[in-house]
């Protein structure tokens, strides 16, 4: 079946602009995760959804970052007033449920803030 998809695959924006990154999880997966990965680093946890609610948003770096999952499926990560330091690959993953540990990752969105 279809895996996790993310759009766009690449996004170039200017400092100060607003961006939205989309994640389509595997159908039926109730848990959804956002991570950020900088060059040469491991992924860094941002936020975790169980269903429609954010079960853990402790990884969001500041209030410029926000994510939603209004219908418990597709999720959007929103970044306001982008900064050059936000440049990274944003990864989305999903799992069957909160106690299903294996996460399935999308290909990521490469964000470049000029």
């Amino acid at each position: 079946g279809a895996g996790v998809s993310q759009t766009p695959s690449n996004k170039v924006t200017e400092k100060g602009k607003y961006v939205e990154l989309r994640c389509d999880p595997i159908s039926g997966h109730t848990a959804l995760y956002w991570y950020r990965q900088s060059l040469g680093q491991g992924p860094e946890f941002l936020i975790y959804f169980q269903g429609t609610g954010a079960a853990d948003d402790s990884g969001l770096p500041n209030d410029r970052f926000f994510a939603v999952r209004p219908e418990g499926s597709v999720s959007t990560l929103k970044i306001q007033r982008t900064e050059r330091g936000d440049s990274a690959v944003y990864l989305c993953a999903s799992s069957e449920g909160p106690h299903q540990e294996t996460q399935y990752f999308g290909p990521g969105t490469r964000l470049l803030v000029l």
Partner: protein
Amino acid sequence: SQQGEEDPQALSIQEGENATMNCSYKTSINNLQWYRQNSGRGLVHLILIRSNEREKHSGRLRVTLDTSKKSSSLLITASRAADTASYFCATDDRKLIWGLGTSLAVNP
């Protein structure tokens, strides 16, 4: 903050050789997972070992876990050029906490 630390940071071997990567972590865990990443994208789950397990096999992969030393190792036997990738360990705290990865190059 990162939980795991993989060792070595980079490894270069010839096809057919075995590759061993190590991971150390800081806090108690429920399980530890290994993932592979090609070309900076596309993380793929390889294997999960639970805290009450000591060794697990999957095809050419062998994972060990020593909770007393807070460490794990991943062995890839009979390596292939297609195994060239970065390998990460991640510990489960509902959200995965990741190390910096080992970059493996398998030369034909």
